[in-house]
């Protein structure tokens, strides 16, 4: 017999993600899901963020990584509370993994929660983990063809950060083409060009975070 189902395959994940989002919103925490390729500069962007916003905003970080705590070690040097999730080979974070570690953070004293996903331009895009917004980091050395090759992650991300902009003169990276492609896939996306090494454009990124935190406080 054929039984009609019409159920979302990732429904269970989405339900837990909604629950997390509701809980974090209740505490007025602005939460971002930070995604991008390995080596695109996600952790370096976080380091720049902590340097600039320490004392201004109360941050907490959840670090997703396959096996190591290398990124979490980098974060903890800044005195920001950080929890490590090791996916032991898993290529993306899922909502139940985040739910499990939330109790380790002092969420009553947090304004901004950054969840750094596993480095990957494919799988993380499909899994909500309780965030307000997804952010994707694309670095100049990856090439400007990446938005069209991995459209889903750019479609899902409210913000696309083009990092390593200081390297543009040494590559064939066409910034205008990258921005055009991102805004074709996602017309309302905010595209920020930054260099985490020189600090260029970081102010625009910080303003985005400040706006998000302000919006959540209401």
């Amino acid at each position, binding site marked *: *017999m*054929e*039984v*009609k*189902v*019409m*159920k*979302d*395959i*990732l*429904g*269970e*994940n989405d339900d837990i993600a909604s629950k997390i989002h509701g809980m974090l919103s209740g505490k007025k925490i602005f939460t971002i899901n930070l995604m991008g390729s390995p080596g695109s500069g996600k952790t370096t962007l976080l380091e720049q963020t902590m340097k600039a916003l320490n004392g201004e905003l109360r941050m907490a970080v959840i670090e997703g990584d396959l096996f190591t705590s290398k990124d979490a070690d980098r974060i903890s040097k800044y005195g920001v509370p950080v929890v490590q999730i090791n996916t032991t080979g898993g*290529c*993306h974070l*899922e909502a139940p993994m985040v739910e499990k570690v939330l109790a380790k953070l002092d969420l009553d004293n947090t304004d901004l929660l950054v969840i750094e996903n596993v480095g990957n331009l*494919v*799988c993380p*895009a*499909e*899994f909500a983990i309780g965030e307000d917004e997804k952010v994707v980091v694309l670095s100049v050395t990856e090439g400007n063809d990446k938005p*069209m090759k991995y*459209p*889903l992650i750019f*479609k899902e991300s409210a913000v696309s950060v083009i990092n390593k902009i200081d390297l543009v003169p040494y590559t064939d990276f066409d910034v205008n083409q990258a921005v055009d492609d991102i805004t*074709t*896939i*996602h*017309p*309302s996306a905010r595209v920020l060009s930054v260099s985490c090494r020189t600090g260029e454009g970081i102010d625009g990124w910080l303003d985005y975070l400040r706006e998000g935190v302000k919006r959540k406080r209401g």
Partner: protein
Amino acid sequence: MHEMSIAEGILGIVKDYAEQNDASKVASVGLLIGEMAGVEIDSLEFCWKSLVRGTLADGAELVIERVPLVGTCDSCGKERHIEHYNFICPDCGGTMIVKSGRELRVNYIDME
């Protein structure tokens, strides 16, 4: 490779429905997969085959129906297929809001 997570999601739904309907064997599972769903079909079928071995869905076929990526313009209201991931309305420059094409859904289960 998140197709194993997706296969696990399907099997979870299949087991729930089989139990509710007192079924002991699943012949096929109908899926709706959107054109812009982040899933590699070959990889999903491979994961599914290895995952269901020894379960009531052993040997069950995945019958996959692709759902085209269709959007509605938020400005002129026209509905059309979205080509080349271009979400800008070719008629008026408005933004195409996705109506279908992101599905990852179990449509039906054929069980005995």
